[in-house]
């Protein structure tokens, strides 16, 4: 299948490109390389292009004639979206409209969108399934939900099948450390931040909230290995034409992990202490958030193969081997 991948040089995108190529697909990547890295796509054809360039997108679609589009390109920080709301709506919503319009014009059959559990917002009864109430709290979450609705509207109008994949907390790296996430010093993701601290590149980490009504007082999250996420995209792509189904799909492990448990796992894997200082809760951070991933299993045969130890071990190996990945 000819597959166009936007944001294919980014974190989840690059792992997915690798698995698509491994499954025998013909892939072209579009990425403006603002955060993605050219080396992450290897020999795969790369068009350095911004999704705000609608003419460029249409031109690529006309020449490549993709049968499927996987749309990863987006800005992804809930926190930054508060201060950069214009940019987030322009890039995420207008950019997605450009992509889906180009796809529809090119008669693309399948469209897979990187959405987020941020569409659910808080509070929620966990585990969260796809029919749970939608109440995003951040502009980022709003952009993801607007995109989902827009893609659904295009799908209804054109017959294009689509899946809006709602990621929970993507983490981890390639088992052989050949690929992983590049972060910068502004990242709030707990694992890279903690690893940076362990490696002596940053002071002790702050745990935002140790007084949540959970067993150890820290927030519960659902971490899912990036390789599992990438495989989900391939499985969804292969099965998207079944039963005339389109819609949202949760991609999470379905297992809540507390921040304290995650840091314990890092201590065990790294053999180092992880100095953590309790800090006040951040507004908008849910106490608990984890997925019911049952739909992904029932409809697409997907379930996670990697656990928390794998996530922490591969992240530790990747960031230790490639310190530049920590910014």
């Amino acid at each position, binding site marked *: 299948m000819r597959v166009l991948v936007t944001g294919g040089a980014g974190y989840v995108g690059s792992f997915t490109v690798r698995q698509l190529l491994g499954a025998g697909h013909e892939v072209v990547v579009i990425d403006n390389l603002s955060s993605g890295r050219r080396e992450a796509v290897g020999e795969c054809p790369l068009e350095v292009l911004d999704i705000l360039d609608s003419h460029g997108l249409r031109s690529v679609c006309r020449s490549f004639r993709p049968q499927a589009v996987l749309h990863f390109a987006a800005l992804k920080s809930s926190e930054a979206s508060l201060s950069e709301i214009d940019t987030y709506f322009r890039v995420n919503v207008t950019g997605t409209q450009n992509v889906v319009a180009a796809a529809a014009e090119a008669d693309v059959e399948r469209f897979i969108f990187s959405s987020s559990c941020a569409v659910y917002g*808080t*509070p*929620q*009864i*966990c*585990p969260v*399934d796809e*029919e*749970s*109430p*939608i*109440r995003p709290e951040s502009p980022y979450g709003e952009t993801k939900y607007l995109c989902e609705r827009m893609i659904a509207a295009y799908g209804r109008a054109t017959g294009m099948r689509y899946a809006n994949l709602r990621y929970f907390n993507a983490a981890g790296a390639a088992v052989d450390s050949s690929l992983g996430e590049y972060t910068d010093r502004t990242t709030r993701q707990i694992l890279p931040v903690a690893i940076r601290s362990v490696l002596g590149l940053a002071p002790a980490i702050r745990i935002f909230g140790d007084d949540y*009504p959970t067993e150890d007082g820290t927030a519960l999250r659902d971490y899912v290995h990036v390789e599992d996420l990438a495989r989900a995209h391939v499985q969804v792509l292969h099965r998207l034409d079944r039963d005339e189904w389109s819609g949202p799909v949760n991609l999470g492990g379905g297992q*809540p992990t507390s921040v304290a448990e995650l840091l314990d796992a890092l201590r065990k894997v790294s053999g180092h202490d992880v100095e953590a200082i309790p800090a006040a809760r951040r507004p908008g951070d849910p*106490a*608990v958030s984890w997925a*019911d991933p*049952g*739909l992904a299993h*029932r409809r697409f045969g997907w379930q996670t193969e990697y656990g928390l130890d794998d996530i922490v071990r591969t992240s530790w190996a990747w960031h230790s081997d490639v310190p530049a990945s920590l910014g």
Partner: protein
Amino acid sequence: MRHAEDTPRNSVGPRCDGDMRLLTSVGRRQAADAARWFASRRITELRTSSLTRARQCADVLAGALGLPVQEDPRLNEIVSESGDRGLPPPRERRNSRHPRGVESWDEFLGRVARCLSDLCREPAAERRIVLVTHSGFFDAMHELIGGGGKRMELQVEHVGITHWQYRPGCPAGTWLLHRHNLTPAPSAPSSSAASGGVARIDGAQT
């Protein structure tokens, strides 16, 4: 289940936080009727709000069901410590601009969500949990499950029973509402405690 009838709010003096409110004699009979209704329903856990009117009700149920009572303050009514004077109605307390000790609706929703998330963490067909709580909890739970907002309020009588079944992965719906606001009928001298199914149903008929 909502707690049984209790003493009116204004009869307990200046404190209006609800913790001084006790079951009335009618309320104690209602609790006993509810206990009989639950007796044949293989209840496995009994949890209650920590407020006295709920705790008293749960104690009656515990005696009939032979179960320990687990107290969980997350089942308490939305907190309105300052006597509600000058406060907006609970569902309009949308932000943190309210006196210390008073919960906003969003804070209350968060508390209810955490309580229910804990219960959903270990789903099992044999788990049948009775929660003795307050009317606000029903609205919060309905809002969390269905996403409905302030447009709908649920009527819940004293000892009104709402039965939700949690069915993760069920294509027909994760949550199945079996009944709402069922109030166990008062026992008649000739009726058997085991009959159990005699009930008055306000709302959805099962």
